[in-house]
């Protein structure tokens, strides 16, 4: 058996925290090898060790059977290891070619010979069917294209072993399909691939073998053909996992949120939400399904007053809240779990207790006008921390930054739900969380619904939308192109709708937006 890469007994510490312990991963030539683990399990750390960004405390790495010391990415490159990063490592205002040649520029008379480089990039692009324009600027091309530029970067340097870090996170279903084709073509050309992911379906479809790590520990390696998603999930989480969320049938009441002909533009003045119509009723969860970048962020920002509405109306319980200030909307009865909890949801340098007061700090009993009662903040915080099982370490004075992602999110949900809003907007509420926290959050959303509140769930994860929602509105190019019921649809159909295809039924709504 020929291994191209062997990582044996790797251990990596950050201060007192052990990110990787005794992990072994062996990559065969010509295989696609999945590295599976929950968020925070240590997958990226392990790959950064392989790529020379971190140095391991123990264990050894062999490439083609020879022990190596990968002190920096240059050595990894020289060994034929290339990395396609999850957060693309691209300079936005550079061209594709400039990004690809950076660090190993071809020159004539000391000058960068961009023409020569562009020609080589074009050749590589054609050979691997990547269809990339070497002279386009990164800021002008799509996310899928940017990923191909990342792949080209490794190929340009002659990589034989490619690491893909969560490559499907922000791709459309079509782009995912194309990526899988590209990976297969790479294998055919003799490359070997490690793919980091926590998505079981992709693993089953694309990989030959799977190495699983849990909480930094190596669990083992299995052959994909001899396993199934349930077994993989159990290995990953360490216990039995329920894929279906338990919930009763919804009994929707009257409209809480009604959105009519909404148009919202982004900071460049381009319309990102176009004539969008939507309603959410008491006692139901409406899921917005769609691929990242189809106007979800702008829609949420418009609903919560963070972005100006260009035209159209938003009403809450019959009251027009279009273009009101965020605080007025909050007080009208909207709770908002923001899509980026670090950016919008929390002041990370505040204690978690002060964060729990973020929406109520200005009102009695906390604020007495000019002066503020920090004792009352602590009281409220302790109550929410208790009710929502927020693990803090040092109580309400723990800095928010020191909490895990799941506990930060629980605190945010506690803060928002505690105000008892009629409409709860949950944007990507489980992004980056482990299975336990995801289950907790889903059950809290359903609990709100059962209390007769309206819940609007925005998610990029099809599983989540299918499992939690009572009704699914599909967003594409800034407009709701169709509304379906989880029970009457399939992931395939949703995937097509999300990609802008119309449903093959007479009652389907017309497709909006422009191509």
């Amino acid at each position, binding site marked *: 058996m020929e291994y191209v890469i062997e990582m044996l007994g790797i251990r990596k510490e950050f201060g007192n925290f052990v990110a990787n312990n005794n992990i072994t991963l062996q990559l065969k030539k010509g295989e696609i090898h999945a590295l599976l683990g929950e968020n925070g399990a240590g997958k990226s750390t392990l790959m*950064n060790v392989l*790529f020379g*960004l*971190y140095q391991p405390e123990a264990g050894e790495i062999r490439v083609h059977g020879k022990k190596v010391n990968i002190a*920096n*990415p*240059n050595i990894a*490159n020289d060994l034929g290891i290339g*990395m396609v*990063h999850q*957060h693309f*490592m*691209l*300079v*936005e*205002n*550079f061209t594709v070619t*400039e*990004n690809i*040649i*950076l*660090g*190993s*520029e071809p*020159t004539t008379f*000391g*000058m*960068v010979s961009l023409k020569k480089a562009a020609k080589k990039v074009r050749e590589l692009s054609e050979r691997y069917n990547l269809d990339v324009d070497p002279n386009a600027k990164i800021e002008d091309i799509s996310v899928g294209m940017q990923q191909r530029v990342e792949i080209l*970067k490794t190929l340009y340097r002659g990589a034989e072993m490619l690491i893909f870090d969560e490559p499907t996170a922000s791709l459309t279903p079509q782009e995912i399909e194309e990526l899988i084709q590209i990976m297969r073509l790479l294998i055919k050309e003799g490359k070997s691939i490690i793919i980091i992911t926590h998505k079981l379906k992709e693993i089953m479809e694309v990989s030959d073998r799977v190495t699983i790590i849990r909480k930094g520990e190596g669990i083992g390696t299995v052959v994909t053909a001899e396993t199934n998603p349930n077994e993989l999930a159990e290995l990953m989480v360490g216990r039995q996992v329920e894929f279906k969320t338990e919930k009763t049938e919804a009994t929707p009441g009257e409209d809480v949120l009604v959105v009519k002909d909404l148009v919202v533009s982004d900071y460049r003045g381009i319309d990102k939400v176009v004539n969008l119509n939507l309603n959410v009723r008491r006692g139901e969860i409406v899921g917005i399904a769609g691929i990242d970048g189809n106007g979800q962020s702008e829609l949420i920002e418009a609903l919560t007053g963070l972005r100006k509405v260009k035209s159209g109306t938003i009403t809450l319980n019959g009251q027009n809240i279009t273009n009101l200030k965020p605080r007025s909307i909050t007080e009208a009865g909207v709770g908002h779990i923001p899509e980026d909890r670090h950016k919008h949801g929390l002041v990370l340098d505040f204690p978690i207790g002060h964060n729990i007061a973020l929406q109520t700090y200005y009102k009695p009993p906390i604020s007495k006008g000019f002066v503020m009662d920090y004792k009352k903040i602590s009281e409220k915080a302790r109550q929410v921390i208790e009710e929502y099982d927020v693990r803090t370490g040092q109580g309400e004075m723990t800095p928010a930054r020191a909490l895990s992602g799941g506990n930060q999110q629980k605190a945010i949900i506690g803060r928002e739900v505690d105000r008892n809003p009629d409409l709860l907007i949950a944007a990507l509420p489980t992004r980056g969380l482990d299975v336990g926290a995801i289950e907790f959050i889903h059950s809290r959303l359903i609990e709100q619904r059962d209390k007769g509140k309206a819940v609007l769930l925005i998610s990029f994860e099809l599983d989540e939308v299918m499992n939690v929602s009572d009704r699914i509105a599909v967003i594409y190019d800034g407009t709701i192109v169709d509304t379906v019921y989880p029970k009457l649809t399939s992931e395939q159909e949703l995937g097509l709708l999300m990609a802008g295809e119309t449903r093959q039924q007479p009652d389907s709504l017309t497709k909006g937006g422009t191509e």
Partner: protein
Amino acid sequence: MSGLDILYFIIPSAILYATPLIFTAIGGVFSERSGVVNIGLEGIMVVGAFTGIYVNLEYGEAIGPNVIWFAILAALVAGAVFSLLLAVAAVSFRADQTVTGVALNMLGAAVTIFLVKLIYDKGQTDMIANSIQRFEMDGFELWGINWFPLANIPFFGPLLFQNVYSTSLLAFGVAIVAWFVIYKTPFGLRLRAVGEHPMAADTMGVNVAKMRYIAVLISGALGGIGGAVYAQTITLDFSASTIAGQGFMAIAAVIFGKWHPLGALGAALFFGVAQTLSIAGNQIPYIQDIPAVYLQILPYVLTILALAGFIGKAIAPKASGTPYIKGKR
């Protein structure tokens, strides 16, 4: 003075005042492009000015008029060494760049006066005997032909080529070379990448720390030259008030020039005009009616207006001002 006379007076004088700014601002462009804000340019210029005057005074008699070049060379080295403090703090020690820059300014001012008192036992140096002199570009004889008699060109001759400082020519040269280096060479590509997205550069095997060190050292070297040129053409001695804001004005030129070497060149020239008018404006009709204070504050106000987007939006390199910490997302 007639209109043409005024122009013949203002333009050479503006170039004179702009020259030190050009050197220093180009230095600032290098540093900022690599992601290091260099507030310490003022202090670096002070160090350069002191070094220049010191070398000029000490070796002027022995070397003669050419001592100015040795002085400039010494200032280049002194500026680079001094800027090493910023590089170490901002790049290796993750210090706040603005705070370090402020410390550099204080240190430059204090160390130089300390040295002046130590060496000369008084608060300021004597005047130098060999200052940077102007000359006329009236060409040179070869094969019986007078080549490039630029000073004889009507209008442009008196405007640009009759009262030329060799340091000004050097400054223009530096600006053009900087443009070439930043936009045409692998070094420049890496420099810009490091200032925009250091982690991307790092993953491509570009040594971010090394690039930033080099850029800061270049800014120190050019800032040192700027100081020496200013002292040897304009004040001709060194005291606490020799460099009074020129470094900050160079920062203004970097921004007003939109972080582009040729832009910085243009901005420095423009500020040179403003300085000329504020100093010598009382000899010029119309200008003499404008209170000097308006001309004095013009460069600063214009820079603010440029940043505010009234004169085309100035956008800084993305990673400017932030230390790069390996392995942090």
